[in-house]
């Protein structure tokens, strides 16, 4: 009995490992290729650079992963981040204490997510079309609120939070690392995580089994909204301004990171570690292509090809499930 338990526990770890191993292998291939082409790539400064540049996408992609796992999709992450960012910036510029402004931004992000979630859960609408609508709607709110102008006057103490570093690691990376751990715990160690996976895997069975399906769906979008808002704050900290057009195209990068990391857009499948690796793959790609001075059109070409190849490698490594 003890041994049975031990055995199946270790098998569990192995399976989880194998799942993400495919993605990791894809990352390794990219790293090996780029570092053989340019020596700068593998310097520790550049590695930190890549992590820092992947941090914002990773943050958004974590929330996206939860939404995708629960069977939805969130196209509105960019504008959600923009609304939260301009709100926080306005508050801070008006002298509101930083923690309060941050809290307000997170609440706004969560509320935007809750609105998406409510339309999906109670309106019975398709997630893609709901968040396509709020993609326009939230962007419009951000633009109207600011009149289209970026908001400056971010307090230096706020900026210091995001431009500083701890133990040589830039703070955005530290923040996202902590958040990843938290989301990993939510997904793997809490009932809510089980519910995300169950609802995405079989909504009807979950409903009959007493899973609060609607609340679970809304929760996924709330996480996504709050994490998008966090990403928006990180960016404001780095840029020193909150632009209402901030977050443009974030949804595609976040979905790509989650999908490269093994999340299934049919729901019920996805991993925090995989998504993080996916975000780093995309970040490395951009970084490496720039180091090699690849021209924009060919960067686009390479991005397309590498996404496809990464997915094929992943597929081949992981096998048909």
């Amino acid at each position: 009995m003890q041994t049975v338990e031990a055995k199946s526990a270790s098998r569990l770890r192995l399976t989880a490992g194998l799942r993400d191993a495919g993605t990791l292998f894809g990352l390794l291939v990219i790293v090996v290729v780029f570092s053989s082409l340019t020596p700068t790539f593998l310097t520790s400064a550049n590695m930190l650079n890549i992590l820092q540049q992947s941090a914002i996408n990773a943050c958004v992609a974590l929330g996206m992963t939860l939404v995708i796992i629960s069977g939805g999709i969130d196209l509105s992450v960019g504008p959600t981040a923009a609304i939260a960012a301009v709100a926080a910036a306005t508050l801070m510029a008006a002298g509101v204490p930083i923690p309060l402004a941050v809290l307000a931004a997170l609440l706004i992000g969560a509320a935007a997510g809750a609105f998406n979630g409510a339309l999906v859960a109670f309106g019975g609408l398709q997630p893609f079309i709901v968040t396509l609508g709020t993609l326009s709607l939230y962007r419009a709110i951000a633009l109207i609120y600011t009149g289209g102008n970026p908001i400056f006057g971010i307090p230096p103490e706020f900026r210091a939070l995001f431009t500083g570093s701890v133990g040589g690691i830039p703070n955005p990376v530290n923040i996202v690392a902590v958040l990843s751990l938290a989301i990993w715990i939510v997904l793997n160690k809490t009932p809510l995580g089980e519910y995300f996976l169950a609802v995405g895997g079989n909504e009807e069975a979950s409903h009959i089994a007493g899973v609060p399906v609607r609340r679970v769906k809304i929760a996924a979008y709330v996480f996504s909204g709050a994490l998008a808002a966090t990403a928006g704050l990180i960016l404001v900290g780095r840029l020193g301004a909150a632009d209402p057009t901030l977050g443009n195209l974030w949804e595609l990068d976040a979905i790509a990171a989650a999908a490269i990391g093994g999340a299934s857009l049919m729901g019920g499948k996805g991993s925090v570690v995989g998504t993080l690796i996916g975000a780093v793959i995309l970040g490395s790609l951009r970084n490496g292509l720039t180091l090699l001075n690849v021209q924009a059109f060919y960067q686009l070409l390479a991005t397309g090809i590498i996404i496809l190849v990464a997915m094929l490698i992943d597929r081949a490594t992981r096998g048909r499930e």
Partner: protein
Amino acid sequence: QDLAPLNSDTEADRIDWTQLQSKFGDVPAAPAGTRLGGVSKTLTNQYWRSVGEGYANAAQKAGVEVVYQAAQSEGDQLGQLSITETMISQGFNALLLSPQTDSNLQPAMESAMAKSIPVVNVNDAVIPSARNYVGNVQRDNGVKVAEWFIANRPDGGKVAVIEGQAGVYAAGQRTRGFTETITKDPKFQVVASVPGNWDRQVAYDSAANILQQHPDLIGFYANNDGMALGIVEAVKAAGKQEQVAVFGTDGIPDAYASVKAGELKGTVDSFPVLTGEVAVEVALRLLGGQSLPRVVVTPQALITADTVEKYSVTGDDLRAVLAVQTAK
């Protein structure tokens, strides 16, 4: 840090590009191995490719290396930031930046400053902390077209604006310049000002709709040439070529061709190749230790059938033409 946030259109510390030579002398020779890094918004727009051409021309003349990169698509703010940061880590001597938005390259700007790498903000969106800016007055693009209408359509009438992407600085300034100038003349009415998203197809459809609503419209102003060429087709399809004058912005080669063919009434050329050349010149002067005014103004000119031949020249001939124009 002590600098006030830059507004390139109104900044008092400015100089015209033609005066650089007379005030600061020759461009200092660059040490061997000098590398300049250019980052623009996108290469899918001819305008930015022309700026890159200018970089390459000037760099070749000065015997320095220039690397020109761009984000994968217009609006890819983080991608552009990543590219710029990565370039900084590669040890370029100076950077020529054309940011997607006013703020998205700020961290790169800061780390460049920290490393004492001169940064030239080239055209369009304005980094508020930029020490040096090269470009034209965005607002004047619209003003020049408005002035044409006031001068050439004395009876006034209805005009419409097709704007660029919502929230983009250049689009806002161009539209404002046009609208504020033309409405000073009470005979003109701006009956529509709607987004065309820099997209030829969207501009075409919007123009068709506006013509539907206002059959007596006399003119369109588009925030760029791609949209203007789309509008021209919509006007042709409505059979109103004689009545409706269409203007664009940027002066891309296709717009010149259309002006010559008598379809596009005009475009405001901001001479991107020259702008690129001047930007490199400014970067080299900065590297040479010169202290330049904050804004270096590059020229722009309204290109119509009357003037198109005059401006259809390149290189030093064009410089000569523009120098004369500025002197006036």
